[in-house]
C-alpha cells in the first residue's frame, strides 16, 4: 500500500467538469465485503453503459483515495453494474473536444496516472492488494486498459463479450497504458496483432491470446473475481517463459518482427494513417524499458494524434455512424418489430448476396428465381460463405448449420405470405418490378414491407398502383454486399416513417449502416460516383494513363482507382447507371462513350477477366495483368490531359463529385453534410482519414474550391469537350458568392 502521506492532487484535464455531471462519488459504488474485500462498481447514474468520462475517472480517483487509506483492504475487484455491462471505453466526445496537443496530453496523463495508481496498489506493481478486473460484454479500449492495470482479468464467457483495443480505428492508439501493459502481458507479436488490427475478440479468443486470464459464466463473474482477489481461488497467469527471452527481449527478433509489421502497415495505410506506425514502435520497445518511461513515451506520442486531423475525421465518422443507429427507431423512440422472415425475389448475384446475408444474420429467408440454375449458384455461394465463417471460427458449427438451414430456395410463385419484408432484385425494368410487387401485395399482409433494391429506378414510380404504397421503400444495398457497409434507404413519396425505421433496423441487424436518401436518380452514392467515374474516362480520352489515374486516386486515399472500380462493378452496369444519370440530369452527366466497344465485345470487367484491364484468375481471385489492348482512345482527339500532375487528376475526379454533392445537399437528398460524409465513406470507400467527401471539401475552403472549380471548367481538357464544362460550374452552396 502507498506510504505517501500527502498525495499530490491530480488536476482534472482542461477545465471543469461539465455542468450536468453527477455528484462527486456517485459514479462508482464502493462495496465493502467481509474479509477485507472491496468491490468498485462502475455505475454512473447518467449513463446506461458506463463510459470512462471525466466524472467517472474523477470518482475512480476518489475511490482509490479511500482504498489507499484503508489498511483493512486485502483484495480489490473492479466490475460493472452487470456482468455483461462493464464500460464502453473512453469518452469519444471528450476526445472529439480536444483542440490542442497540451489538452490531449493532460487527458492522457490523467488516465494513465489513475490506472497507474491501481497498478501500484496491485501485487504485480509492488502493492499489497490482489486486484481483479471482472469484465464482460463490450470491453473496448480504455475499459480494457483499466483491466490491464489489475493483477488478474476475469471475463464473462458470453457471446456478447468483446475485448480489445480498437483505438487505431479512431486514428489514435491506446494511450492509457495499453501499448505498454499489453506487450508485457502477452508478448510483442500478439500485442501487435491486437493493437494494429484494432480487433475486438470474443471471450474464447481473448482467453486463448492471453488478453484475459480466466473465463467464467456471467452469473459467477463477481464471485469468482472476489475469490481470486482474496486468494481463495487460484488463477495462474500463463507465463511466456522462454519466448520472452527469445523474442520480447531479443533485439534481433524484435527488429525482424518490427520490420515485417512495418511493411504490412505501410502497405495498408499508404502513409495516410500515422497511428499504427507509432504504436508499432512503442509496442516493440515496451518490454525492454521501464514502465514509467514507456508510459511517458506513449503519452507524448498519442497526444498529437488525438489533436490531429486523422483522429478528428475518424472520430467524426464514428459519431455519425452511431447517429445512424437512431434511424432504426420509430418516431416514438421505440424499436420497431424485428424482421423475422424475409423474402428475396431474384437469385442473381445481388439477390443471392442479400439473401445470404439475411440468412446469416438470423432472418428466415426465402429466395425465389424461376431459374433453378441461378438458385443453385446462390445457395452454393451462401453455404460456401457460411462454411468459410465456420472454418475461421467466427461462428460455431451449430450456428453454421442453422444459417444454412435458414435459406429456403424455391422456384414456386407463392410462399411469401408470412414474410415481414420482401426485397426484389429482379431486372431493372419498371414494369417487371411493378409486376413483382403487385403479385406480392396480394399474398402478403398489408403491413409487410416491399423493398426494392433498384439502383436506377424511382421508388415512387415503382410504388404507383401498389395497394398500400406506404410500405414500398428503396433498400439499396451497396455492391459488393459483403464488403460495403452502407445501405441507402430510399424514401418514396408515399413511404411511411415506420417503414423507413423498420427497414433501417433491418440494415442495422445485418451489420450495415443505413442512410435515408431522397428518391432522386442514382440516389446519393451512384449519383456521386457517376461524375467521378465518368471524369476518369474523360481523362483517359484526353490522354491520361488509366494506371496513372488509378494510382493518383489510391494515393489520395480511395480504396481502389476509378478504372479498377469500373472493372469491379462491371462495364455494363456502370454504363447502364451512367445512362440513367444522363437521362435524369442532362448535359452535366453526359456520359463518355469510350467503353461502348468493350461492352459490345462482352468484355465487362473482372467477371469476364477482361475490362479496362486484363485479369488472370489466381487462387479464385482476378489478378490484374495489364491493360486491355481493345481499349482505344477516340482517334485524333486533343491530348490536353496527357501531362497532368497527379493532383490535377485527383481534382478532376474528386471535385466533379464535390460539385454534385453540393447540389445534393441543396436539394436535400440527404439530411445534411454529416450523412453525406458517412455515405461517401461507407458507400464508396471515400478516404476515411479525410472524414468524408463534404468534410474534405470544407477543408479546402469554399472560396478556394469555387476558384478551383472555375479553373477546371475553363481548362482546355474540359472546356470544349462533349458535354462541356457544366459539371464544374459551381453549384449549390458553392454557387453563392
Amino acid at each position: 500500500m502507498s506510504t505517501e502521506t500527502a498525495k499530490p492532487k491530480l488536476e482534472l484535464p482542461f477545465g471543469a467538469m461539465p455542468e450536468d455531471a453527477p455528484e462527486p462519488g456517485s459514479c462508482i459504488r464502493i462495496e465493502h465485503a467481509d474479509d477485507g474485500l472491496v468491490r468498485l462498481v462502475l455505475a454512473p447514474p447518467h449513463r446506461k453503459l458506463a463510459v470512462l468520462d471525466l466524472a467517472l475517472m474523477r470518482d475512480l480517483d476518489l475511490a482509490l483515495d479511500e482504498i489507499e487509506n484503508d489498511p483493512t483492504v486485502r483484495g480489490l475487484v473492479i466490475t460493472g453494474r452487470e456482468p455483461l455491462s462493464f464500460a464502453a471505453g473512453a469518452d469519444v466526445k471528450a476526445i472529439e473536444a480536444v483542440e490542442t496537443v497540451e489538452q490531449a496530453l493532460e487527458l492522457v496523463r490523467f488516465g494513465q496516472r489513475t490506472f497507474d495508481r491501481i497498478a501500484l496498489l496491485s501485487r504485480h506493481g509492488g502493492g499489497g492488494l490482489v486486484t481483479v478486473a471482472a469484465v464482460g460484454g463490450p470491453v473496448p479500449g480504455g475499459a480494457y486498459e483499466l483491466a490491464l492495470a489489475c493483477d488478474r482479468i476475469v471475463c464473462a464467457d458470453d457471446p456478447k463479450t468483446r475485448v480489445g483495443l480498437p483505438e487505431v480505428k479512431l486514428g489514435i492508439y491506446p494511450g492509457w497504458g495499453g501499448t505498454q501493459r499489453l506487450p508485457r502481458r502477452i508478448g510483442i507479436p500478439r500485442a501487435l496483432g491486437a493493437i494494429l488490427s484494432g480487433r475486438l475478440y470474443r471471450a474464447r479468443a481473448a482467453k486463448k491470446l492471453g488478453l484475459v486470464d480466466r473465463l467464467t459464466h456471467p452469473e459467477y463473474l463477481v464471485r469468482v473475481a472476489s475469490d481470486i482477489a482474496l486468494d481463495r481461488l487460484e488463477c495462474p497467469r500463463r507465463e511466456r517463459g522462454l519466448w520472452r527471452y527469445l523474442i520480447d527481449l531479443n533485439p534481433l527478433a524484435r527488429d525482424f518482427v518490427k520490420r515485417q509489421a512495418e511493411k504490412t502497415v505501410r502497405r495498408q495505410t499508404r502513409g495516410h494513417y500515422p497511428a499504427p506506425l507509432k504504436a508499432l514502435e512503442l509496442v516493440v520497445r515496451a518490454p525492454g524499458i521501464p514502465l514509467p518511461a514507456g508510459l511517458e513515451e506513449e503519452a507524448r506520442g498519442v497526444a498529437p494524434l488525438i489533436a490531429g486531423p486523422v483522429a478528428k475525421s475518424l472520430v467524426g465518422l464514428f459519431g455519425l455512424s452511431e447517429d445512424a443507429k437512431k434511424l432504426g427507431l420509430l418516431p416514438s423512440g421505440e424499436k420497431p418489430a424485428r424482421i423475422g422472415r424475409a423474402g428475396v425475389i431474384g437469385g442473381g448475384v445481388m439477390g443471392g448476396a442479400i439473401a445470404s446475408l439475411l440468412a446469416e444474420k438470423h432472418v428466415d429467408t426465402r429466395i425465389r428465381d424461376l431459374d433453378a440454375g441461378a438458385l443453385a449458384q446462390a445457395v452454393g455461394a451462401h453455404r460456401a460463405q457460411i462454411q468459410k465463417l465456420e472454418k475461421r471460427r467466427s461462428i460455431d458449427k451449430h450456428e453454421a448449420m442453422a444459417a444454412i438451414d435458414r435459406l429456403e430456395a424455391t422456384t414456386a410463385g407463392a410462399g411469401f405470405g408470412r414474410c415481414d419484408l420482401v426485397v426484389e432484385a429482379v431486372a431493372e425494368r419498371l414494369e417487371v418490378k411493378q409486376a413483382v410487387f403487385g403479385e406480392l401485395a396480394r399474398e402478403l399482409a398489408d403491413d409487410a414491407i416491399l423493398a426494392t433494391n433498384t439502383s436506377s429506378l424511382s421508388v415512387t414510380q415503382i410504388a404507383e398502383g401498389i395497394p398500400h404504397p406506404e410500405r414500398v421503400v428503396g433498400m439499396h444495398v451497396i455492391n459488393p454486399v459483403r464488403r460495403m457497409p452502407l445501405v441507402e434507404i430510399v424514401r418514396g413519396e408515399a413511404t411511411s416513417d415506420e417503414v423507413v425505421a423498420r427497414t433501417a433496423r433491418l440494415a442495422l441487424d445485418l451489420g450495415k449502416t443505413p442512410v435515408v436518401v431522397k428518391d432522386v436518380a442514382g440516389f446519393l452514392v451512384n449519383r456521386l460516383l457517376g461524375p467521378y467515374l465518368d471524369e476518369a474516362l474523360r481523362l483517359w480520352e484526353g490522354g491520361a494513363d488509366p494506371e496513372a489515374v488509378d494510382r493518383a486516386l489510391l494515393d489520395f486515399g480511395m480504396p481502389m482507382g476509378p478504372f479498377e472500380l469500373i472493372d469491379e462493378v462491371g462495364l455494363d452496369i456502370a454504363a447502364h447507371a451512367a445512362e440513367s444519370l444522363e437521362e435524369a440530369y442532362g448535359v452535366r452527366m453526359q456520359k463518355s462513350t469510350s467503353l461502348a466497344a468493350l461492352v459490345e465485345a462482352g468484355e465487362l470487367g473482372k467477371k469476364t477477366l477482361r475490362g479496362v484491364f486484363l485479369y488472370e484468375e489466381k487462387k479464385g481471385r482476378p489478378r490484374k495483368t495489364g491493360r486491355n489492348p481493345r481499349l482505344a482512345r477516340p482517334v485524333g482527339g486533343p491530348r490536353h490531359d496527357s501531362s497532368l500532375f497527379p493532383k490535377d487528376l485527383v481534382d478532376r475526379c474528386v471535385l466533379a463529385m464535390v460539385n454534385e454533392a453540393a447540389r445534393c445537399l441543396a436539394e436535400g437528398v440527404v439530411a445534411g453534410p454529416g450523412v453525406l460524409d458517412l455515405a461517401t465513406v461507407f458507400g464508396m470507400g471515400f478516404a476515411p482519414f479525410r472524414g468524408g467527401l463534404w468534410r474534405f471539401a470544407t477543408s479546402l475552403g469554399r472560396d478556394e474550391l469555387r476558384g478551383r472549380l472555375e479553373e477546371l471548367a475553363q481548362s482546355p481538357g474540359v472546356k470544349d469537350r462533349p458535354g462541356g464544362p457544366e459539371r464544374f460550374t459551381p453549384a449549390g452552396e458553392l454557387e453563392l458568392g
Partner: protein
Amino acid sequence: MTENSTIVLAAGLRLPQTRAGGACAGEDAGHLGATLARELLARTGVDPAELSEVIVGCVGPPHDQANIGRVIALRAGIPRSVPGFTVARNCASGMQAVTTAATKIRAGEGDTYLCMGVEVMSAYPLHFNRKATAMFARLASARSLFSRLGAMAGFRPSMLAPRITLIEGLTDPTVGMIMGLTAERLVRDFAIERDEADAFALESHERARAARDRGRFERETAPHFPFGKRGPGKVGAAVQHDDGIRDDQSMERLGRLRPYFDKTDGIVTVGNSCGITDGAAGLLVTTEARARDLGLQPLAALRSWAWAGCDPARMGLGPVFASARALDAAGCQLADVGVVEVNEAFAAQVIACRRAFASDEFAQKHLGRSQALGHLSPERTNRNGGAIALGHPVGATGARLLLTAAHELSVSDSELGLATLCIGGGQGGAVVLERVAA
C-alpha cells in the same frame, strides 16, 4: 363422425427421391427434412405456431439427431413451443407418422400435425464391430501407460471388419433373413417366374417415366438443392426429378442381371427390387374444418387405416393383411377403390400380394373370410410407377404413398384410394383415402 371433424391430408409435398450415394450423398436427414418442412409451410402459408406437433418417421436417424422429429422442427424454424417426436415402423414409418396424428386428433389431442417421413440412406454409417468396441472401451478406461499399452495389444485385424448398418438394418433379426430373401420365400410360395418379375419392374420404369414426362410429379415435388458429394458449398444443380427412373430400361437389360440374394436359384435381382434411396415426404394432417380455416383445399380424407402382423419370413404379404382390415373398417370392397398405391419393395413381392388378394384359399386360410379380397387391377395400381423406379427411402415411403395416392384421386377422378405397404418384421399398413368435395 361429423363432416367437420373428418381427418384430412390438408396439403403435402415431397422432395425428388435420389439414388443413395448420388445427388444427396452429403445430406443429413435433419437438413433434408427441414428443407421440406420449410417449403411445405411456406407454400401452404400455415403459421407454424399453429401446429399441434411435428411427427417424423425415420428408420435410421443420424446418431447425432436421435429424436429427428424435434431436430427437424427446430431446424425448419418452427417455434420452440411446438413439440416434436419421431416414430419408427421400418418401411411404414412415414405412414405411421400420419396415422399417429390421426389417432391423436380423434382422441382430441391437438388438431394440426405436420407429419413427415425422411430417410438419407446415403448417410448410413459403418460401425465398429463388438470386439473393436470392447477394445476401445478398455482403452478409454485404462489410466496408466502400461494398461493403455495392454489394451492396445488386444488389437486384432478382425476388428477392422465393420458392421454395415445398411445391410444389418435391412435384415430381420428374428428370422435372420435379409429382405430380399423374404421375397425369394414368396417366389417359391407363389411360383413366380423371373420374366414376370422383370416385366413388372419394366412396367414400373415405363409408368414412372411417362408420369414424369407429363409433369404428373410436379404437383407433389419441389426442386431441391442438396448437399452433394463434394459438400454443402458445391451445389452442382437443382434436383428436380426422381433420379431412379431408367429411361433405357428393357427386358433384355433386366434379364442380364444376376440374382442378388439367392445367387444360385433365386429370381430377385437389383433390377426388379426397389433402389436404396434418399428422400423426404411431408403431409399436413388436420380436420376438414381446420383445413378450411387455414384456407386449404384438402387433398383427401382419411377414411380408415389399419396395421396388421404376419409371418416375418413372408413380410411381403403385409399389404394383404392390412388392406383387408382397412377395407373392412372403411366398409368398402377392393373393387370400389379407384386408386391403389402399393409399395414395390420387390416386383415378386407385389406379384405375390396380387395373387393373395385374388385367392379364395388365401382368404379362407389367413384372413378368416370366405371370399378373396378381389382383383388388384394393374390399371388402378401404381399408375405412376412405384419404388422400383422411384426408389424407396425407407422412412419416407409411407408418406410418399399417401401423397401420391391423394393426388391421384383427383387426377383419375376416383372416390376412394388405398395406400399400403409391407413392413420388415412381418407387418403391413394400409390407409383408405377418400376424395374431399371442393
